[in-house]
């Protein structure tokens, strides 16, 4: 359209094109330069799902290689790269990105704000994180190995020293691990700061901290925790680069350096990191379970206290990952105490969710199905965590498939199920369409069966002595049967998650339209259109309690009468 049609001379015609190449470029441009928290939230999630495909492929390769002893599906070198990349990808570029996405999308809406505190920083964090992930995968073609061919990192996702030193990891594969995580780490710290600043400084009038949705509390603690969690890893990785490129000796045991120092620094990052991953999942469950039980969350104040307690205690338990490293007995005992202690606030949460369901009128829509599965599975995960927290028991179970089963129980059975619940719950808000019910049920049941086949039985392989990170194993150790069952479960999980991804795409075009409040929810995001306009709210409801929409819908029995 030319400016001839516009009455003012030399005016610029900014009507958006509606079709063709111009439309595509316009749309791409809009998304690339956006600082809108809603678009960025979706971008984080889509990026996370992309990396989920890659991480999942690596898992499938691992399980095929381990189906039978002495298989030759892949070489040991390739296998070692697979488990390294699988762990690194899933933690940093799948779970973290998806959780960041939900956080930056939901938090401003739930606190009645226009956007995050620092919208441009939000965009910067996204691009840094995504670039880090792409850099990590570029290692497959770029990192030169012994023969000049590209190689991905193969030092395990913890990259223990001195395996990562120049002597034992020539070439650049380890550097790709280091730099990719350094870059995305800066992004993560930025997101943490942004979440904290948003929640503290951008709440709508009269939304005191005590009236904030629990999800916002969980993201507040997660954001604050990120500041102290990622940074030790950043520091350790800088030290590793000094060792590898400037001849430093931080972890150089030949020069008196300490491999143990890396272990401590890594796990000072590594343990709080898993709480960074789980707290938002708790947030999703704390929003979904009340709405589908039709009761407020049981014990809001103690849930907040437990969250903050978990945040603090999580900084003191790290050495339970290195009980076998040879610390003095009293050091080991100290970490047993702190590890067991963190079970208390975590257990409290499970009881409070149970208390929320108790006496309710539970609607088993898909978000609730996933959250109920979460409750059972997280219970088991927590209990195997307690087993691992007892140092002597840990001396048998550590570095075996029992640990692998435990943390997949937390991350897949707990966190991923909660994330899927969040998808089914908030997809209508983000897109204006409901996810397909049938596909959703296939997703749920296939994944549930697959998850349990794989990870329930994996515990036994560990108990029977199967070590982790091995590309093959011996006959006659009693492990063959369990590995086959694990493999079959993997197939079911792939099918279940494929249903999910297909559902996401199909429902975007064909899903039933959703109105602004399809679930009869109580928090502010349901007070605006689905999807919300760019400015979020034209009119904000009055906030006098933690459930402003409940108060509006039930003027005869509002929350603020009881608080």
């Amino acid at each position, binding site marked *: 359209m030319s400016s001839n049609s516009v009455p003012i001379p030399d005016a610029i015609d900014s009507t958006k094109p509606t079709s063709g190449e111009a439309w595509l470029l316009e749309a791409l441009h809009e998304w690339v330069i956006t600082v809108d928290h809603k678009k960025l939230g979706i971008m984080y999630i889509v990026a996370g799902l992309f990396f989920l495909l890659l991480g999942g492929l690596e898992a499938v390769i691992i399980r095929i290689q381990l189906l039978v002893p002495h298989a030759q599906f892949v070489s040991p070198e390739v296998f070692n790269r697979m488990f390294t990349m699988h762990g690194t990808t899933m933690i940093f570029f799948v779970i973290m990105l998806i959780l960041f996405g939900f956080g930056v999308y939901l938090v401003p809406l739930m606190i009645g704000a226009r956007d995050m*505190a620092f919208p441009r920083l939000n965009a910067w964090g996204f691009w840094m994180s995504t670039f880090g992930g792409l850099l990590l995968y570029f290692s497959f073609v770029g990192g030169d190995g012994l023969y000049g061919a590209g190689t991905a990192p193969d030092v395990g996702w913890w990259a223990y020293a001195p395996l990562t030193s120049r002597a034992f990891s020539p070439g650049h594969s380890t550097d790709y691990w280091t730099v990719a995580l350094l870059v995305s780490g800066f992004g993560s710290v930025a997101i943490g*700061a942004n979440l904290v*600043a948003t929640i503290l400084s951008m709440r709508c009038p009269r939304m005191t901290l005590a009236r904030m949705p629990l999800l916002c509390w969980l993201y507040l603690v997660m954001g604050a925790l990120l500041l102290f969690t990622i940074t*030790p890893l950043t520091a*350790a990785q800088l*030290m590793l680069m000094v060792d590898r490129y400037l001849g430093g000796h931080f972890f150089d045991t030949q020069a008196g350096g300490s491999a143990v120092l890396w272990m401590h620094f890594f796990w000072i990052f590594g343990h709080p990191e898993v709480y960074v991953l789980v707290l938002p999942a708790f947030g999703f469950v704390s929003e979904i379970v009340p709405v589908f039980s039709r009761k407020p969350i049981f014990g809001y104040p103690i849930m907040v206290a437990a969250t903050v307690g978990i945040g603090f205690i999580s900084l003191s338990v790290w050495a339970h990952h290195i009980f076998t490293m040879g610390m003095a007995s009293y050091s080991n005992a100290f970490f047993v105490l702190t590890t067991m202690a963190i079970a208390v606030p975590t257990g409290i949460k499970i009881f409070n969710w149970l208390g929320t369901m108790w006496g309710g009128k539970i609607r088993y829509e898909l978000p609730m199905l996933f959250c109920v599965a979460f409750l059972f599975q997280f219970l088991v995960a927590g209990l195997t965590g307690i087993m691992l927290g007892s140092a002597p028991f840990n001396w048998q179970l550590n570095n075996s498939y029992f640990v692998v089963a435990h943390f997949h129980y937390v991350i897949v059975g707990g966190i991923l199920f909660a994330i899927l619940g969040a998808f089914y719950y908030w997809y209508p808000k983000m897109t204006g369409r409901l996810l397909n019910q049938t596909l959703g049920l296939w997703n749920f049941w296939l994944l549930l069966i697959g998850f349990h086949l794989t990870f329930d039985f994996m515990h036994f392989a560990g108990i029977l002595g199967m070590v982790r990170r091995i590309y093959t194993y011996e006959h006659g150790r009693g492990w063959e049967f369990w590995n086959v069952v694990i493999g079959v479960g993997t197939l079911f999980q792939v099918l279940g998650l494929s249903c999910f991804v297909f559902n996401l795409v199909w429902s975007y075009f064909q899903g039933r339209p959703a109105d602004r409040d399809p679930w009869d929810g109580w928090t502010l995001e349901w007070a605006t259109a689905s999807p919300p306009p760019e400015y979020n709210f034209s009119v904000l409801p009055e906030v006098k309690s933690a459930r402003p929409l409940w108060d509006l819908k039930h003027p005869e029995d509002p929350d603020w009468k009881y608080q």
Partner: protein
Amino acid sequence: MSTSPATFPATERPWTLPSRRRVGMFCLIAAESAIFVIFLVAYIFYIGKSLTGPTPRQVLEIPIFNTVCLLSSSLTIHLAVRALQRGKTATFKLFWFLTLALGAIFLFGTGREWHRLIYSAGLTISTNLFGTTYYSLVGLHAFHVLAGLLGLTIVMLLALAAKVTEEHTEHVDVFSLYWHFVDVVWVVVFTTVYVVGR
């Protein structure tokens, strides 16, 4: 479902929240502190553990002058912010420039110290554990001073172009928090490296 706009009776307490800029800066400071703590822990852990010389006692000279400069710059930046708060832009520019100069002197002094250590004393980052941890810790701090100097320079240029006024008081105050942080870190690093570690 109707939503009624929020009404705020005059008797209610005014709704104030912490400034997002301040919160953001405190978050940055918290994160950076964690990085410094890890480098400090490494430094302290390796005191006395080098397999070969030189030792700190043999080669380190206490940088009194540099330290005085850097710590004074905290005072000058504080005075600059106070001046801007009162609308005294000329005073602000003076004290801001002093801060910049003092910071630059500190950095230059560090550079001279390192030149002496490398070429006269034979201490490099790869010499021994002391070398590695010393250059990393002091270097990390110097890097943060450099970043601060960059920010100071940008503000200086804006001020010279008469773009910085009283209404930017909060902005420069928040920036000065970063500068104070850099100084506090130096106090800790100085104590660890030049007092305790020798």
